[in-house]
């Protein structure tokens, strides 16, 4: 009975917090399970209760995390379905993702993206898959956008794994030309050992762009390999964690013959504390420390080379307010990000607000 109660408490704790404001405040630590991590490993929805979450933002989007979106999940016996509206994928974002690199004067991100998820519990394993789709066609202005992808994931005891495949990713307009994404791929796995969670992931993505005359203007590819370890300590509903990783990023653009290589050692520490029965406060500090090299070359010319690089230390702080099954999360904007003004006041209170309701 005691063990059952512990499991219930643990699940309730996991379910109580969920939004992109939360994961940002916690430094996007790889060990987190959240309604936002469902967008990389769909099987994460299987270990949370049914929920509906809404993230504030604009219809047109903009910076990462600035778009409006929402998701609902519903259980049906041992299976679960999910529907997400408006979530922007990095590979198809025109402001902070691949499409932003096309060099077009006008380019759109995914328009009205929709995602369908289905997961099932099979013996000791939870698995799930998501279909991502967006489509837009302005026949008068001759402007089109479309994307399609599949995400799959599983959780089996201490093990989790994910495989995300970007199938199509295209954009074109009559003036700038065409953007065509290559097949995108993210494969990752993690393993929990008591308080320690180790994980690794490989991401490959790219695109080709051509102008209105059909001349190739960009042929871009990127590969990121990351490995990390996080030590997490939970007590009395509070969590404290710290971790380190090693990340290698290589990008290449063949038309301009430019190349970027990065290798860095991110270190982070974070906490999530039940300040009161209705209030959760969370925060993290991150830094690329000791190993932090970046090199950008165009042809035979090196345009950037830092090893180690400049200041990267950033603190992010957020708060979550809980009312029964409803949670309202936000980032404390004055205390978060590279330009934090150190204030908590009427004009620097909650930002990037999201709401989650657990059924």
């Amino acid at each position, binding site marked *: 009975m005691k063990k059952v109660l512990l499991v219930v408490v643990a699940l309730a704790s996991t379910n109580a917090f969920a939004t992109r404001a939360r994961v940002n405040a916690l430094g996007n630590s790889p060990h987190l399970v959240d309604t936002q991590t469902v967008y990389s490993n769909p099987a994460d929805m299987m270990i949370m209760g049914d929920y509906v979450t809404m993230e504030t933002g604009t219809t047109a989007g903009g910076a990462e995390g600035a778009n409006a979106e929402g998701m609902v999940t519903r259980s049906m016996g041992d299976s679960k379905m999910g529907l997400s509206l408006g979530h922007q994928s990095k590979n198809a974002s025109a402001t902070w993702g691949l499409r932003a690199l096309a060099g077009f004067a006008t380019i759109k991100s995914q328009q009205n993206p929709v995602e369908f998820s289905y997961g099932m519990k099979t013996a000791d394993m939870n698995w799930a898959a998501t279909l991502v789709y967006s489509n837009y066609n302005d026949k008068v202005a001759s402007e089109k956008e479309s994307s399609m992808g599949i995400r799959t994931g599983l959780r089996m005891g201490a093990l989790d794994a994910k495989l995300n495949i970007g199938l199509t990713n295209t954009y074109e307009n009559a003036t700038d030309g065409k953007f065509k994404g290559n097949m995108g791929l993210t494969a990752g796995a993690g393993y929990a050992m008591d308080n320690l969670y180790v994980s690794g992931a490989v991401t490959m993505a790219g695109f080709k762009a051509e102008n209105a005359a059909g001349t190739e203007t960009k042929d871009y590819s990127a590969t990121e390999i990351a490995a990390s370890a996080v030590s997490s300590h939970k007590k009395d509903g509070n969590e404290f964690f710290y971790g380190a990783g090693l990340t290698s990023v290589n990008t290449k653009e063949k038309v301009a013959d430019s190349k970027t290589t990065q290798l860095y050692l991110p270190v982070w*520490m974070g906490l999530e504390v039940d300040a009161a029965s209705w209030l959760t406060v969370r925060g993290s500090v991150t830094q*690329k420390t000791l190993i932090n090299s970046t090199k950008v070359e165009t042809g035979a010319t090196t345009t950037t080379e830092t090893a180690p690089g400049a200041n990267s230390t950033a603190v992010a702080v957020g708060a979550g307010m809980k009312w029964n099954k409803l949670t309202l999360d936000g980032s404390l904007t004055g205390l978060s990000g590279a330009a934090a003004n150190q204030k908590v*006041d009427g004009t620097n209170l909650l930002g990037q607000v999201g709401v989650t309701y657990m059924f």
Partner: protein
Amino acid sequence: MKKLLTLALVLSSASAFATRARVTALGNSAHLTDGSYIYNKPTYAAIVGDSLTLESGVTANGFTTTGAVPDATDSSDANLGAEGMMVRSLGDAKFVLALGHDDSTTFMNRGMANAIKTNAALTYAIRPQQNPLFLAYATKMGDMHVGAGLRYSNFDDKKGDEKESTMGLTFDARGDKWNVDLDLGLTDEWKTGATNASPGDSFKGKSAIGLSGGYDLTDSLYVNAGFMSGGFKMEDNSAEVADVEYTNINAGITESIKKDGTEFFYGAGLLSTSAKEKTSDSKVTSLKMPLIIGLEAEANSWLVIRGSVTQNLLLVDSDKTTNGATTAVETAPGANSTKLAAGAGLKFNKLTVDGSILAAGSQVINSANLLGTVGLTYAF
């Protein structure tokens, strides 16, 4: 049982406060025990206990210090950067890892160089430390606590031809009634190379040494004294533009009265500073007697209010700046120096949120002037 309760109260009290907003509000009084003092006194990790502290701020901290040069006591902008510190137990010992903390001596030295640049209208874009890292270890040896810390930063822009690096060591020891710490600045350099847009600029810190100590004369009376010496040379386009050396000597006495979770303290000190810039043959000397009155009160179970008033006593308050044979500034006693600093700490179980209030002469608390310089501490 009573002893256990007292111990628990002391531990929870010590763990509850540990941010730069707190020590700023309390006038940086020498008698305080605070997590932010671990950078100079690693053994304080044992008093603070296992904790994680997050200080809000910007990623790319810079200098805004201008005005009279040299000024060997100004490092105020060091509090604008984002940083965090973790204290963890390893058996009887404590291990400390801190990310992003700007060392006050390094920041002060480079801030002085930046002020010299501003006054001389030089093209000289000196950086503070980049991604500074601090590691410390403290343990108990018999009745004594000993600790050591290492601070390090490194930056190398090979294309832009610009480098920055620092390294320093700090050692301290503490007994029941006494404490002593030694700080050694080993390297403190910034320079631009031939291909930089502003070539041949450099800053090279001289070996810096700081030694300080304190003693509890009685349960409420604390005396302290310290010595600090350092300096630097700076070059603009490979020509030396400044050669600064400074020495600060201070001593102080503080009476602290604690009752019902509230602390009231007052004290006086003597601060002598002497700084010399050889290239322009300028010299700044000062002798001051700073007085402080402070208070930290538990307004209720979740709220701590703190504040302090400081003033240089007019009987001992002299400043003199000479440029060659010319006296540029000479005041004795000097102008108004009375300052108020105040802050509040919000306690939520093991989490404390500290911030400053009524900052920079503000007399207003409203929705646009609530908490500033906010930091969080979680004691686990």
